[in-house]
């Protein structure tokens, strides 16, 4: 049974990779731009999935980290810095801020944490909007240059798409490795039963902070790519709306599933563009999908697929062990 499911999984993964590699030749530049946006948002969603799906700490501040990363890159590269130092700086400073934001998570849980992070996001948004000397206020920062890699410029849409895709691949590989390391297992222990984890010698304080900081750092990296992608940064995209949207991406895809954010970002970033004729209706449909998923399958689309696959092969009690039901708690 598990081999059967594994085969389906690997097949789907291979098909998705092939599609992503040939996609730029199938679409017009705007389509390539949207795909690059998908890759960038998926990185932010992977970060949030670490915090929410694996470590079980809700965060509504991911947009703030994407924003901080974006502004660091936009501000410095328009003042003549090369891209890579700003990339490192963006990731590291978001990691540090995320670490600090993790401290409330040590004191409060669940909905209180949601509100602390929500408040943080809104405060950061206000800073972006009001500190004109630094961020350009509502006029933003224009003409953000695109970087070059080993002397090759990736300024054109298709090379830049591959640039974003390469980052997505790197981030995915690093996360995959992380989740299989003792750290990843500690995160899951933290989500499943913090008190038991503590009694087994897991330093829950430290791992909560690390989960927050890593999620935030990936948000920052996503931001440093977002700035050269859109080449124009203003405060609007980093408002609370994006944080909620990223949260929905993770949950719709399946929080706690490695590929959940990828699928969630497809639903939240790609599908709205491909169904433009139905603009507002799409958002309504999306909202209804979120509600239906929460009623019938809180583990998201991946959880749903998991359930379908295990139901079609055997009616085993395997469901008890899926992250589905544990994540729901």
């Amino acid at each position, binding site marked *: 049974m598990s081999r059967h499911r594994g085969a389906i999984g690997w097949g789907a993964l291979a098909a998705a990779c092939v599609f992503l590699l040939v996609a730029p030749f199938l679409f017009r530049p705007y389509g390539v731009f949207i795909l690059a946006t998908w890759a960038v948002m998926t990185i932010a969603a992977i970060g949030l999935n670490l915090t929410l799906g694996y470590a079980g700490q809700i965060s509504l501040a991911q947009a703030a980290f994407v924003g901080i990363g974006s502004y660091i890159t936009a501000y410095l590269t328009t003042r003549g810095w090369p891209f890579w130092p700003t990339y490192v700086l963006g990731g590291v400073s978001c990691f540090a801020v995320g670490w600090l934001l993790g401290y409330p998570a040590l004191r409060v849980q669940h909905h209180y944490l949601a*509100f*602390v992070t*929500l*408040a943080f996001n809104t405060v950061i948004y206000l800073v972006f909007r009001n500190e004109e000397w630094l961020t350009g206020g509502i006029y933003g920062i224009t003409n953000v240059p695109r970087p070059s890699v080993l002397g090759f410029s990736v300024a054109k849409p298709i090379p830049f798409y591959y640039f974003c895709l390469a980052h997505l691949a790197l981030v995915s590989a690093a996360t995959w490795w992380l989740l299989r390391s003792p750290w990843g297992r500690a995160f899951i222990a933290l989500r499943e039963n913090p008190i038991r984890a503590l009694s087994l010698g897991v330093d829950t304080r430290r791992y909560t902070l690390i989960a927050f900081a890593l999620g935030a750092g990936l948000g920052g990296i996503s931001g440093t790519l977002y700035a050269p992608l859109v080449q124009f940064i203003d405060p609007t995209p980093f408002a609370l709306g994006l944080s909620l949207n990223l949260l929905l991406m993770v949950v719709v895809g399946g929080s706690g599933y490695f590929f959940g954010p990828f699928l969630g970002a497809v639903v939240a970033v790609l599908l709205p563009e491909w169904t433009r004729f139905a603009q507002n209706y799409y*958002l*309504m449909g*999306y909202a209804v999908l979120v509600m239906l998923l*929460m009623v019938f399958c809180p583990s998201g689309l991946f959880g749903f697929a998991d359930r379908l696959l295990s139901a079609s092969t055997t009616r085993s009690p395997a469901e008890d062990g899926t992250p589905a039901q544990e994540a729901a708690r």
Partner: protein
Amino acid sequence: MLADILQLFVAGLATGAIYALVAIGFTLLWQTSQTINFAQGEFVMLPAFFVLIAMGFFKLPFWAAVLAGGAVSVLLLGYLFKKLMVDPMIRHGVLPLVIATIGLAILMKESVREFYGADAWPFPPLAAATNVTVFGVSFAVQSLVVLVISIAAVAALQLFLNGTRTGRCMQATAQNPTVARLLGIPVERMILYTFLINAALVVLASILITPIYLAKFTNGELLGLYAFIAAIIGGFNQIRGAIAGGLLLGVVDNFTAVYISSQYRMAVPLVFLIVIILFRPQGLLGRVEERTV
């Protein structure tokens, strides 16, 4: 100077009273059913549109429209919200319901934008936009009317909760559902009542605040946020906490806008919120909640 301060204070109390109404509903839902309603702001946005539809399409006079819109809202945002969303989801825990209500908020906003329009529509005020002068200080009649109606509503609610049998049963349900059930209280029905009361409160808030802000599909975003903040500052598990939080927030907000920085007006309540959560998570007036592992 003093006159200005008094004026600001009363205006702040008036908006604060509306926040308090919304926050009370929010805490009621939390107390009886552990529901965190992220769509609470949109719940305030929507009834105004029902009233506008009743006046526009069905040509009802204002008061009849308010009654009709209110009835539809209570049915939709009270009864159906509980039956269709909260009941099937509550067994999954707090988080899925939070996310589902975020979805609900998007659905309500987008539906209003699609089917009614993205403009800001004028809404008939309850009182003329004039000022009265008391002891040399002029107050907006609208603020005073809002304040009086909110106080009356809160007083009526308190009277109901403390003075009637049903009200006391509801309090018992909120404090300890298991024991309440053992004592023969129909817990399910009591929870339904809190949802209906919440719907009634948001209808009232909607009718009070929409003349000031105009009817727009995005109205709920800020209102919902302020209601959460009011509820948390005051104490998530106390009605009087929500009242105090709401009033405090309204006043602080107004003074910040005038005396500190209108740009960072929103930031002050938020920073306040972070500080309260970090140092007194149970809120200014709240009790510490013991939750099992």
